[in-house]
């Protein structure tokens, strides 16, 4: 008995090793269920602040290109305003203005917020992005994130001032979308190239073509409809041969994202509760 105890005491580092490995594996396996445990992600305040400080210095180097993007964006917005003004004038005297107000009410549940990316990875199978807005600025989990190029991802977990976003470049990310003027589909990344993602389970009866634009469907309660995701680049048979699979060239350059928009839906809970009844 005593000799067994001696051996155990002599090899106590085995227990420490097994304990720490155990903790690590628990973290690996249960990370999906750890949405509230922001301490283990870069949303925690120390990691977030360090990344903010680095980004502050880093952002000076990108000011020129960022300015060009802003100028372009402004130009586009001014053009859009002009087009909308013209359209409004057309409708002004007609009775259809009442119809417009009626249809536009559907989108009123969405509200927008801006944020800055403080950390970003693209080389992993499960990439994450950290942004500098959190619950105190009204950013929570399950909100849509996009920039002027297109959809970036969905917020994953938030601390009071930082949020971790699950981008399209994450093997766990699944986005409900539609091919413009055609059917609904699902976008999923295969963990390989950062420029491409895949539409899976495309029905065979629908005629998809190369060059078709993929946009958000608006059915998921996270994104409003019509935010661009990418363009179909190649069509192929799925592994089981039952449906099509399409390679989509993503509009967003994930290696270079700086300013993003976060979109929330004040009706989301209501919509999900309602849908929950049927599930």
């Amino acid at each position, binding site marked *: 008995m005593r000799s067994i105890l001696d051996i155990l005491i002599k090899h106590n580092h085995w227990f420490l090793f097994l304990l720490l490995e155990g903790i*690590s594996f628990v973290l690996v396996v249960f990370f999906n269920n750890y949405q509230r445990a922001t301490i283990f992600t870069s949303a925690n305040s120390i990691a977030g602040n*360090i990344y903010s400080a680095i980004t502050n210095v880093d952002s000076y180097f990108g000011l020129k290109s960022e300015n060009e993007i802003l100028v372009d964006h402004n130009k586009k917005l001014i053009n859009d305003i002009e087009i909308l003004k013209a359209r409004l004038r057309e409708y002004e005297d007609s009775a259809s203005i009442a119809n417009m107000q009626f249809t536009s009410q559907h989108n009123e549940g969405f509200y927008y917020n801006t944020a800055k990316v403080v950390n970003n990875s693209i080389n992993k199978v499960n990439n994450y992005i950290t942004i500098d807005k959190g619950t105190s600025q009204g950013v929570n989990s399950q909100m849509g994130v996009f920039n002027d190029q297109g959809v970036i991802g969905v917020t994953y977990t938030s601390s009071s001032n930082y949020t971790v976003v699950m981008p399209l470049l994450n093997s766990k990310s699944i986005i409900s979308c539609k091919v413009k003027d055609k059917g609904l589909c699902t976008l999923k990344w295969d963990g390989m190239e950062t420029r491409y993602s895949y539409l899976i389970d495309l029905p065979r009866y629908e005629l998809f073509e190369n060059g078709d634009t993929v946009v958000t469907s608006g059915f998921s309660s996270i994104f409003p409809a019509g935010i661009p995701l990418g363009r179909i680049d190649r069509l192929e048979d799925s592994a089981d041969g039952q449906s099509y699979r399409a390679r989509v060239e993503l509009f967003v350059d994930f290696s270079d994202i700086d300013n993003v928009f976060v979109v929330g839906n004040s009706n989301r809970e209501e919509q999900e509760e309602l849908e929950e009844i049927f599930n």
Partner: protein
Amino acid sequence: MTSKTITRTRNFVLLTLAQVIIFSQIHLFGYATACIFTIFLLKLPRHTTQNETIIWGFLFGIITDIFCNTPGIHSAAATSMAFSRKYILAAFTHKGLPDDFIPGVKSLKWGGYIVYAIICIAIFYAVLFPLELFAIRHFTTLLISTSSSIALTMLFVIVAEFFSPNK
């Protein structure tokens, strides 16, 4: 003892910051990522207790995990490497060495130190990448990532050796 602890803590903080701010952001060709904190574990004196080595390994891993949003992955890998270090080092120890030597070029010669470092770092990445690519079966990606990361980290291990105060 105290000055040793202070030096180690200082090295720990500096290496961790360098790791998360610089090295974790660099991905050569999209595959290779250097984990330079492994140098700290490689260079612990021979008679550092196993418990201390394992705890250092776990701390390096968990902090890198927090910054890289990879909970558990780096810590599992670094703990494994810290645990196996003693047994690998024993294979390279010979009688001419002082009792509590620091592994390096001076004690193990270039050949010995490089082989010792490669085996330790290979163990690190052999745990890291399979855990990271858990759900996905891309065997070639796994092989390319592992071998290129070992090579890149070894480059930094060798560079560090040129600047090391006690080779």
